[in-house]
């Protein structure tokens, strides 16, 4: 931030040669040349669009006829639309259940992987749990749609073998919701697990040894020692998991297209449908803004709450 300061101050010794003037000019040229693709690109493809979203949300526009001022109509419309309300409630419910499962499973398995295992076995488990992250959510959902098929799916075959009758997984509301949650958590818990493994590795072993001398074991060791010490990681993992889960789309789209009825319709699905199927771009933008507000509010709330439980060493 010091364009006015002579270049020679960069080299403190008097003997150092002063930077030639043309070098300073070419350095300034380099700065702008190197920044333009990224800064210009982000301005064009992220900042301008977010600003445009705010404007579009107040218009009625089907892309064919010219846009028409709509005031708050789009927002009133989505607030009173049963399907949109349902989609947002579905999304919020999904986030609560899926994130709780994702973090719970990830933390439990991370603690087990970290404890008392030879390191080669640790890396085997870590790789196994990490693997689903490299697959596409669309492909995974295709596979899971077959596994949960009510007539010939492997899941029902296994249930039948232990005496449980067929479950109508994808053709009933509650079944479809359960499958979407399962598929999402199946693919996502590995990421939280990686974060937790990092957090657990930073707890000094002496802490555990001291705790053991004091008789802290099992559950009390978990709540009194592990949990407070990884609370900063827990905050990061929760914030990231909630942001990602609020944007769920691929899995319910491939598995159910939002059905049966509206039972697996999500907020992002409404953006897609309003915008790109019904050509109501103003309405799609308004839904997008509400979702963004939800993401920001959820993140802010977690940081606020974290003051009570996060313990920084």
């Amino acid at each position: 931030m010091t364009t006015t300061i002579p270049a020679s101050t960069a080299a403190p010794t008097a003997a150092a040669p002063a930077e030639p003037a043309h070098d300073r000019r070419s350095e300034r040229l380099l700065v702008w040349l190197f920044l333009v693709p990224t800064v210009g690109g982000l301005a064009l493809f992220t900042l301008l669009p977010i600003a445009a979203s705010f404007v579009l949300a107040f218009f009625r526009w089907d892309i064919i006829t010219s846009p028409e001022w709509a005031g708050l109509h789009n927002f009133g419309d989505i607030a009173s639309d049963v399907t949109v309300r349902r989609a947002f409630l579905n999304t919020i419910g999904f986030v609560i259940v899926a994130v709780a499962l994702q973090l719970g499973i990830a933390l439990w398995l991370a603690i087990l992987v970290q404890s008392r295992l030879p390191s080669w076995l640790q890396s085997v488990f870590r790789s196994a749990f990490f693997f689903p992250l490299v697959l596409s959510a669309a492909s995974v959902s295709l596979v899971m749609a077959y596994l949960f098929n009510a007539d010939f799916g492997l899941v029902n075959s296994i249930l039948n073998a232990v005496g449980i009758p067929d479950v109508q997984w994808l053709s009933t509301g509650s079944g479809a919701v359960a499958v979407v949650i399962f598929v999402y958590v199946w693919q996502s818990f590995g990421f939280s697990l990686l974060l937790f493994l990092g957090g657990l590795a930073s707890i000094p072993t002496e802490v555990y040894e001291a705790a053991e001398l004091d008789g802290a074991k099992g559950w009390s060791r978990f709540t009194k020692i592990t949990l407070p010490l990884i609370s900063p990681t827990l905050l990061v993992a929760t914030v990231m998991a909630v942001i990602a889960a609020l944007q769920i789309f691929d899995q319910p789209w491939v598995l159910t297209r939002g059905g049966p009825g509206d039972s697996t319709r999500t907020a992002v699905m409404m953006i897609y449908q309003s915008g790109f199927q019904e050509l109501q771009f103003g309405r799609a933008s308004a839904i997008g803004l509400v979702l963004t507000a939800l993401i920001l509010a959820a993140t802010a709330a977690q940081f606020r709450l974290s003051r009570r439980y996060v313990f920084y060493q």
Partner: protein
Amino acid sequence: MTARRPHVGTLVVLAVATVLTLGPVVWTLVRAVTPEGQGFSFSAFGDVFDQIDMVRLTLNSALVTGLIVLGQMFTAALAGYVFARLEFRGRGLLFGLVLATMMVPLQVTIVPVFMLIRGMGLSDTLLALILPAVPTAFGTFLMRQYFMTLPPELGEAASIDGAGPFRTFWSVYAPLAAPGLAVVGILAFNYHWNEFFRPLIFSISEENYTLPLGLVTLQGNLGSGSVSTVLAGVVLSMIPAVVVFVFGQRRLREGLTAGIGK
């Protein structure tokens, strides 16, 4: 630590979790090579090529992902270097702005980006997928962090030897940035090879479909008829991702968890 015997319960829980995690993948592989009513056979793999244009889909995916990967590595290296190494007015503000774009969810900008693409005359082209994905805030952040770990003395020495700013970047710092660039490239590959939402919106005609979109279409067209065919397609599309997993797992893990304090 001294060798402590693992708890049996621990091993059982981890083994069950591993079976649940890898089970669907193994089932996919087995089912792809045992088509309906036949024993072991690779016929489903032939069927995929008959029923959808796998060559086209693969080429599209490779082109889109490849150019995004290269574009991100190149632009992130340039911007990351400038933010890490050079002083200029407004640096803090610009870098803050770059970081702020990471908070904007993709779905919120998708409508205006679609309009923009349309205005640029790029509707229903592969460029519609590539161009908006090249500028990368996260990649720039990673590269900045990486360049900051390299000693500034290298550049000072080069400039005393008479190298200009471009030469200092190109011959001194850029070659040292390879490990950081690998992380950016692997992350970009993993994300865009598997991407579904943007292709669903931007690729209108089938000749511009990418693999995930093509496979979902295949399932939709055939309904429940040919499980093995769809699964064979899934297996084929997984291969590059698995290769990256095998060779880049550590880098991928580092990248995904980068910037997050332990």
